[in-house]
């Protein structure tokens, strides 16, 4: 049974490459070296700078969170290293009235939509100021005010929810669009299937953003599906699928904007496959060196979305080394008090354990709360 027969069969899928950012059908505006491939970047110079700053800020925060985890100051982090153009470009293409249903790598997008940095770090530290009362793991934040959903761990569950949300808006003649994020691995989930199927049938105003970052923890895309591409999966639902270079922020903005407009026009949902790359382990708990071919990392480093945008801006004369230094200093300065405040805050009060299970506390939770408050404390706080 181990002579490789099935091995070969299983990897028959390898004949095509579902993770080739340079393939011909992939929407691209900037070359890997930052050259404009079309007449128009599709965004103003000002927007390009806003996007660049946001991407850099996101990466710095990401690196800092990893450091905090390594230092044992927070328990966990899952970030977007290498995927900043996909996250920021798509969020940027949303209108203020639109909604964002995140996966777990989109903190940069939520911050871009206005989530306070403090709120993000209060979640990372799970402290008493965290509006979700330290109940969820790091990177599982919530920020309704900026029309951002609540991060969940189970893969794919947000997809059908985003469809129901958009559907409800449509029923109420509210012209918003709901954009939902998920990974390549999530396309195998039940909810990808039912979400896209419902969206197709009911023509809901959704934009589905599949961040194809090459991996689902250690599982490569060719082990995830034998579909030619992830975008092609739209066919099964009567939904147009389009691939864009997820490391080219202009391509992401362009593709997403078109999809948003389509939805606003009433023409229904779009599935976008953004080809990008997870340039870190899956999370701080993962060691990618156990399974990731070294050369793969190298070739994607050359496609780094931040480098690419910086080359473009420098070429235009709108960015300098000095700008870079001051931006980095600025973000560092912004982070210092935020982290300090988050770290020195107390853990949530004991009674918060029982709140929000229901709108009001039923008898059994009143009893359990009383028991906890009257009893001895656990070690470690």
């Amino acid at each position, binding site marked *: 049974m181990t002579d490789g027969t099935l091995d070969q069969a299983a990897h028959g899928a390898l004949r095509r490459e579902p993770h080739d950012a340079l393939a011909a059908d992939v929407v691209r505006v900037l070359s890997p070296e930052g050259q404009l491939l079309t007449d128009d970047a599709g965004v103003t110079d000002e927007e390009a700078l806003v996007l660049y700053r946001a991407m850099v800020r996101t990466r710095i925060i990401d690196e800092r969170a990893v450091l905090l985890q390594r230092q044992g100051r927070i328990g966990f982090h899952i970030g977007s290293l290498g995927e900043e153009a996909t996250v920021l470009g798509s969020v940027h293409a949303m209108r203020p009235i639109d909604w964002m249903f995140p996966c777990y790598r989109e903190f940069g997008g939520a911050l871009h939509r206005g989530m306070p940095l403090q709120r993000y770090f209060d979640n990372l530290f799970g402290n008493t100021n965290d509006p979700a009362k330290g109940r969820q793991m790091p990177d599982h934040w919530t920020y309704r005010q900026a029309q951002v959903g*609540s991060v*969940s761990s189970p893969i794919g569950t947000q997809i*059908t*929810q985003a469809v129901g949300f*958009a*559907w*409800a808006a449509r029923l109420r003649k509210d012209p918003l669009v709901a954009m939902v994020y998920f990974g390549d691995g999530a396309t195998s989930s039940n909810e990808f299937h039912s979400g896209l199927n419902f969206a197709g049938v009911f023509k809901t105003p959704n934009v589905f953003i599949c961040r194809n970052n090459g991996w689902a923890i250690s599982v490569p895309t060719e082990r995830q599906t034998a579909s030619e591409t992830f975008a092609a999966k739209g066919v099964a639902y009567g939904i147009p699928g389009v691939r864009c270079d997820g490391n080219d922020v202009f391509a992401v903005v362009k593709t997403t904007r078109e999809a948003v407009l389509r939805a606003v026009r009433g023409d229904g949902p779009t599935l976008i496959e953004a080809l990008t790359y997870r340039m870190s382990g899956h999370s701080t708990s993962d060691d990618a060196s156990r399974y990731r071919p070294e050369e793969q990392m190298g070739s994607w480093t050359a496609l780094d979305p931040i480098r690419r945008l910086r080359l473009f801006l420098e070429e235009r004369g709108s960015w300098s080394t000095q700008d870079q230094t001051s931006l980095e200093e600025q973000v560092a300065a912004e982070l210092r008090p935020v982290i300090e405040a988050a770290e020195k805050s107390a853990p949530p009060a004991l009674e918060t354990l029982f709140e929000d299970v*229901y*709108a009001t506390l039923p008898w059994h939770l009143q009893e359990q709360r009383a028991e906890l408050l009257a009893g001895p404390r656990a070690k470690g706080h």
Partner: protein
Amino acid sequence: MTQMNMVQAINDALRFEMQRDDRIVVLGEDVGKVGGVFRVTAGLYDEFGDDRVIDTPLSEGGIIGAAIGMALYGLKPVPEIQFSDFIFPAYDQIVSELAKFRYRSGGEFPCPMVIRTPVGGGIRGGHYHSQSPEAQFIHVAGLKVVCPATPADAKGLLLSALRDPDPVMFFEPKRIYRAAKGEVPEGDYTVPIGKANVARQGEHVTLVTWGAMLYESLDAANKVQAEGVNVEIIDLRTLWPLDIDTVVASVKKTGRVVVVHEAPKTCGLGGEIVALINEKAFLYLEAPPKRVCGFDTPFPYTLENEYLPLSHRIVPALLETARY
């Protein structure tokens, strides 16, 4: 007051509240044009249209996931799961998402909805059209679980559920969909969630049950009355959070208790009720609390009436408990 069966009472509650509250949307398999395979949503499609009474593709996970999204938006979805045996493809959405949404968002995203689904045996439905999965939802924090036994309670509890700020699992005992008839108040009428009903007053034994087994319990109580055993029957109506005060008060009075439910005995709600009574009325107990339940096997087709805790199995349990 009008004479109605369960189906009519539920239909009446839905229609009443849909007229009153335009955020209510009914969705599910076959709920629209055909009015549901049990005809519970009959007429709603014609009255409220395809935007509010929606036939969906065959995917319970999709139905509940989409309903969650609708609830997050601010609508009040009322998904129907055609049989509660088919709720399991949606189990992840219900237990991982719906039940936890308010909690995990620190209250930013409450997710009120009412999941309606026929429950229990009695229609010769075999393995997959007969089960009673309430315990699998009660164990999960964050859900309210309701199961009415009379048309009036069906209407009153459904209207309460539709106005409740939390997600409610609304189990409809299909065995008595048409068999249970009774006077139902017209117009607005609510029965509070969390309050049991003492369906029969008695002194000797407390019997706790709900749904279709209420009628079997009443029948058994009448039979043992002839032998001098006087049974108090509590129809829970709300399975969780259950009305602990009513249960404990009764057990303190009788000192004896029998719990009757259709679901398999092991890890069913019956065991929880026994454990709660131990915690709250231990010194009052004069006999071991007894459970008369579905057996710990899959639900059978031909031997359905042997499997269910019908009157013939309740009677000996009551006698044994009373005479202990």
